[in-house]
């Protein structure tokens, strides 16, 4: 089993009624260093997810006793904050949006590649643990929310307050594009005279500081900026 960078294995609860799928998913994820416990009933699944033993919940939508939305609702009503990844064979867009509103964190359509489940699950757990512990990373770039310090390849990375604000947003949402409008929105509270053009300048400066390392800021027109590790 491969520990993540904090030396802790990811424990995950799978609520799925198809025994074959469950068996092979448990086996496959174990090969990726993720411990998966299997539960085939929605009601029991909610109970076990609420014990606090798990880092994430993998939830199948087509359960015989409760549907996915009900499981989500009971979990969130019971105070469960663990990230939930929904596995679905349906491809109805409005269903997905409704479930996102109901508190799902991510979706995977069946059939899926185990590597995809693993990557997204680890990202989910890391993000939720990052939110919990205040430690975020992308490639060799680390951020500790408690000390408000960035480190790149083991060395402290010095950034201006504005650069700090942007890089913090980006590292908290690795791989998720943030539009300029979104960044402005988040920063304007702290920095009222920030102009849209200034963001481009700040990104440019940050890029120069990250140059030569395994992490970079990608710009996609229409989508936004996001952090990407070289080997991702």
């Amino acid at each position, binding site marked *: 089993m491969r520990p993540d960078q904090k030396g802790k294995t990811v424990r995950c609860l799978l609520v799925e009624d198809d025994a074959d799928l469950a068996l092979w998913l448990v086996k496959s994820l174990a090969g990726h260093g993720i411990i998966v416990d299997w539960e085939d009933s929605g009601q029991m699944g909610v109970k076990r997810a609420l014990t606090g033993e798990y880092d994430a919940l993998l939830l199948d939508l087509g359960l015989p006793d409760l549907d996915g939305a009900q499981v989500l609702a009971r979990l969130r009503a019971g105070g469960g904050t663990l990230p939930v990844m929904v596995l679905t064979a349906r*491809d109805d867009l*409005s269903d997905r949006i409704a479930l996102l509103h109901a508190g799902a964190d991510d979706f995977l359509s069946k059939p899926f590649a185990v590597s995809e489940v693993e990557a997204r699950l680890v990202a989910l757990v890391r993000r939720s643990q990052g939110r919990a512990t205040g430690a975020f990373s992308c490639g060799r770039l680390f951020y500790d929310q408690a000390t408000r310090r960035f480190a790149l390849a083991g060395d402290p990375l010095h950034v201006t307050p504005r650069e700090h604000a942007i890089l913090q947003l980006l590292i908290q949402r690795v791989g998720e594009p943030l539009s300029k409008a979104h960044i402005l929105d988040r920063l304007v509270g702290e920095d009222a005279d920030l102009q849209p053009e200034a963001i481009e300048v700040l990104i440019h400066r940050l890029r120069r500081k990250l140059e030569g390392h395994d992490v970079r800021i990608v710009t996609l*027109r229409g*989508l936004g900026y996001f952090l990407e590790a070289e080997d991702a």
Partner: protein
Amino acid sequence: MPDRRVRSLRATLALWMIPASLCVFGSSIWLTQNAIARLADSAYDRSLSGALRAIEADLSVQSGGLGMELPYALFANLQAAATGTVYFRISTDDGLVQIGDTRLPDPPSPTRAAQFFDATYLGQSLRVGAVRKRLAVPLYGAPTPQTVLIEVAETTASREAFLGRIARLAFWRDATALLAALAVLVVGVGMALRPLLRLRDRFDRRAPGDLSPLDGSALPAEVRPLIDSFNALMARHADQAAGQKRFFDDASHQLRTPLSVLRMQLDYALATPDTAEREATLEAMRGVVDRTARTTGQLLALARVDSGAVPLTPVDLSAILREVAFLHLPAARRKRIALDLDLPDAPETLPAAETLLYEAVSNLLDNAVRLSPPGGEVTLRLDVRPKAAALIVSDRGPGMTPERLARVGERFLTDGEGAGIGLSLAVAVARMHGGTFTAANRPGGGLEVALILPRPPALSKNRHMPENESRL
């Protein structure tokens, strides 16, 4: 209140025809009675008036008194014809002369002209004829000549009996005619409805899957449009059924082929003693599974388009494109593809089948990302034109041969790269929205495909200006 729509034709006809016939019947009887009574009166009154004239001609005043000779022969005739009693009275206006049945009532009008009226005398109904005449000389020393009133009356029993006979005759004649008409009507309706009943039998005998048109040539002209509509409906169903059959044929091919490939790969991998060969085989299986998974999704989406009954709801096209871009971003980034999203400032909302549109664009973007070289660029663009909105996916991949371009949209055209069904789906989704699908090679290499949806006229104008969203 009975529901008008579920009433049978027979009941509707009966409801209209029976009261109407009874009305006509009643008024006909009433009119006949009246006419006969008038005719009878005038006939009877003519014989009364004959008697009046005979008496009047026989009046004499030569004797200084009033003299007359009763026309007995006439009375006898009258009596015989009337089979009743005949009365008469002759009186002067001063009451000095009273001859005959002196208690016959006076006529209602003081006129001198002949008049006829009904009266009662000695408990019998009478028909009375009366005429007044001024005498040539005064009688009994009166200063002026008197007016003499002549009345002849007969009992009406025979006349009533006659009228009754006529009325009964008229009643039975009309009733017979009415019943005959209703009977003819019932038979006629039955005859008219017979083709419909035969039609019903043909419907009943139809096999569940029989979508052939009905032959309406033997049916009444009124029913023909119904048959035409029915046939048009059947034709639509037949089209749909043919499409579905084609779909199932193609779908079984598309799904069974990779399953047989997988089965072979599996058997081969288990049988081969060479570890490296086994691993290579398993690796190859992964690709087949991925392709099958994609094909399944596409087939399901196509089946949904083919089912035809997909509701259209207002869909924000920019939101769809953004969703699709986010979905394929990880795959694109694994190949270091620059995935750009080019959206207009104003949101564009069209009535569309959201999930299918999403699936179609997702397939197009999936094709573009898979066929792009690593580090290439793929653009997802929304181009809003006055009458249409185009969802455009362009890449710098290999593009298509002219032959392939000419056959874009042919269903399940396999091209080795698995882009076929995705394109068919895009074509089908465009068509179900009343739009079009185009594909063209780009100058400088790559392919540009566009799913073009018509904009409803009401939407061509900007309904509301959104706040400008900053583009990156």
